[in-house]
C-alpha cells in the first residue's frame, strides 16, 4: 500500500510551507465538509439546498528527527567517566508515538567509547544531571550498542525531548583523537509493521485505530555526536643572564640578573586561570619596573596588565595570564640585583 504525495511540490510553491516540526492536525481529528446551494426555480426564489457532510479522519503521520546539539566536538579527557553528548529527538508526526532509541559506536574514528547509556532530560533544562535525569537504557557494557523505547506525544509536553548519551572514555586514546557515537530513533509502529518508505500505510496502526502513514523521515532518523580527547599541558622554562656592569657575567654584589620564563601551552583545548608566580631569590632585590610580558613593560603596582609585584622588592612577581588556548607561548622577564 502506497500513497502518492504528488501535489506536495506544487503545494510548497503556492501555500506557505507546512511546519517541518510537529505537527499538524492531531491524529483522529474528523474533518467535515458540507456545501450549500442557493437557486431559483420557477416562481420560487431564494431556495437553498445543503449537501451531505463528508467526513475524513486524520491519519497518524509518523515522522521523527534527531539532531546533535553540542555545536562542536565534546572535549573529554583520557579515562574520563560519563562524557556527555546532547541530542534533541523530536516527534514530528501528529500523534503519540514510541520511538526506539539506539546508541551505537560508529566507525571512521580513533577509539570506541564504552558503557554507552541513554538518558532523558527529565526536567528539561538541557543539562545532564545524573541525580534528576532519567536513565532509560539498561547500563551498557563494553563498546556495544544500547536501546530504549520512549513515548513522545506530538500533541503534548513531550513532543521533543533532550536525550543525553553518556559514555566512558577508555585509557588508550591520545590527544585530539575522536570517537563518533550515533543516536538513532525509529518509530515502533514502523518497526512492528515493517514500514520503511514514505507513504507506507499500516491500516489501523495509528492512535485510536486510525491508519498510520510514514512521512518524509520514513519514521527513522539519526545523528552522530563526537567526543574529542582534549589534553592540555603547561610547561615553564626558566633561564637567567648576568650583567656584572663590567662587561662580564660574574655574579658579584650589584650585578643585574635577568630572569626569563617561557610559558608553553601545548596539546589541545585551553587552560583557564593560568597564573605564573616566582619568588625573588634570596640575597637579591627586584629592579623596579623591570617586568615584561611578551616584551611589553609591566606596571609593578598591577592594574590592567598581567604582571604585578607582590610583597615588595623581596617578594614575588605574579603574572595573571588567564585563559590560554593551546598551542601558545608567552615570555616573562624581570630583573634583580645581587645584594
Amino acid at each position, binding site marked *: 500500500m502506497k500513497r502518492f*504525495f504528488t501535489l506536495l511540490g506544487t503545494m510548497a510553491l503556492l501555500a506557505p510551507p*507546512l511546519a517541518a516540526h510537529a505537527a499538524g*492536525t492531531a491524529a483522529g481529528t474528523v*474533518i467535515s*465538509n458540507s456545501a*450549500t446551494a442557493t437557486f431559483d426555480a420557477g416562481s420560487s426564489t431564494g431556495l437553498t439546498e445543503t449537501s451531505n*457532510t463528508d467526513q475524513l*479522519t486524520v491519519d497518524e503521520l509518523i515522522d521523527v528527527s534527531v539532531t546533535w546539539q553540542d555545536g562542536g566536538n565534546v572535549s573529554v579527557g583520557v579515562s574520563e567517566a560519563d562524557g556527555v553528548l546532547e541530542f534533541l529527538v523530536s516527534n514530528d508526526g501528529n500523534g503519540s508515538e514510541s520511538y526506539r532509541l539506539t546508541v551505537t559506536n560508529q566507525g571512521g574514528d580513533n577509539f570506541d567509547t564504552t558503557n554507552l547509556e541513554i538518558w532523558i532530560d527529565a526536567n528539561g533544562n538541557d543539562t545532564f544531571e545524573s541525580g534528576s535525569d532519567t536513565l532509560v537504557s539498561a547500563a551498557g557494557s563494553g563498546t556495544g550498542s544500547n536501546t530504549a523505547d520512549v513515548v513522545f506525544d506530538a500533541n503534548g509536553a513531550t513532543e521533543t525531548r533532550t536525550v543525553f548519551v553518556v559514555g566512558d572514555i577508555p585509557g588508550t586514546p591520545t590527544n585530539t583523537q575522536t570517537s563518533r557515537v550515533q543516536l538513532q530513533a525509529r518509530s515502533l509502529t514502523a518497526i512492528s509493521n515493517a514500514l520503511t518508505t514514505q507513504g507506507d500505510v499500516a491500516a489501523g496502526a495509528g492512535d485510536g485505530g486510525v491508519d498510520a502513514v510514514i512521512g518524509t523521515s520514513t519514521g527513522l532518523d539519526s545523528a552522530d555526536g563526537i567526543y574529542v580527547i582534549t589534553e592540555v599541558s603547561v610547561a615553564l622554562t626558566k633561564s637567567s643572564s648576568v650583567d656584572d656592569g663590567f662587561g662580564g657575567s660574574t655574579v658579584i654584589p650589584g650585578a643585574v640578573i635577568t630572569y626569563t620564563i617561557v610559558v608553553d601551552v601545548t596539546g589541545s583545548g585551553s587552560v583557564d586561570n593560568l597564573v605564573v608566580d616566582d619568588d625573588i631569590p634570596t640575597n637579591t632585590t627586584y629592579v623596579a619596573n623591570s617586568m615584561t610580558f611578551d616584551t611589553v613593560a609591566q606596571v609593578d603596582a598591577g592594574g590592567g596588565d598581567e604582571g604585578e609585584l607582590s610583597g615588595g622588592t623581596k617578594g614575588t612577581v605574579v603574572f595573571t595570564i588567564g585563559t590560554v588556548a593551546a598551542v601558545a607561548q608567552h615570555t616573562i622577564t624581570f630583573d634583580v640585583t645581587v645584594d
Partner: protein
Amino acid sequence: MNNLKRLMPVLLLLLAQSAVAADATPVTLGVVAEREVVTVDADGNQVTTLERVTSAAPGETIVYTINYANDGAEPAENVTITDPVPPETAYIGGSAFGAGADLVASADGGLTYAAPAALRVPGADGELRPARPDEITHLRWTLRNPVAPGGRGFVRFKATVR
C-alpha cells in the same frame, strides 16, 4: 372502511407535504473527498485518477468535488454553490474549478466575498495585504447559466490537510 375513510385526509395531507418538499429542493448537492492516485500505464505514461478517501494524513492533498443535479421539472436559475474550506485544511491557490461558473472567495469566515486575487486581510502591521490561499475560508461558485431539468455538473477544489 370507516377507519380508512377517517385516515384519508391525513394521508392526503402527508402526500401533499412530501410533494411540496420535493418541489422545494429540486437541486441536489453531494460532497465527496478524493485523493489523486498516479499510476503508470503500459506505455509508460503517468495517469492520474481519483480515489475516494475516508482518512488522510497531514500534508496530504484532498480533492473535494461538489456534484449538483437538477431533479426538478423547472430550470434552476441563479445557482450559487458555497463551500467552507474545512479549517483543518489549507486551500491550494488556483485549484478551484467549475465549468461555466464564476468563482469568488472569502477570507473572513464568509462575511464578504471577492475574487481570490482581490481578497485582503489585515497584516501584522494593521495594513491590509493580499490574502494567502491558505487564509481562504469559503469558496463560492456562481453558475452563469441555468441548470436544465435533468442537468448536472460539479465544482471542485484541492486542499492540503494541515
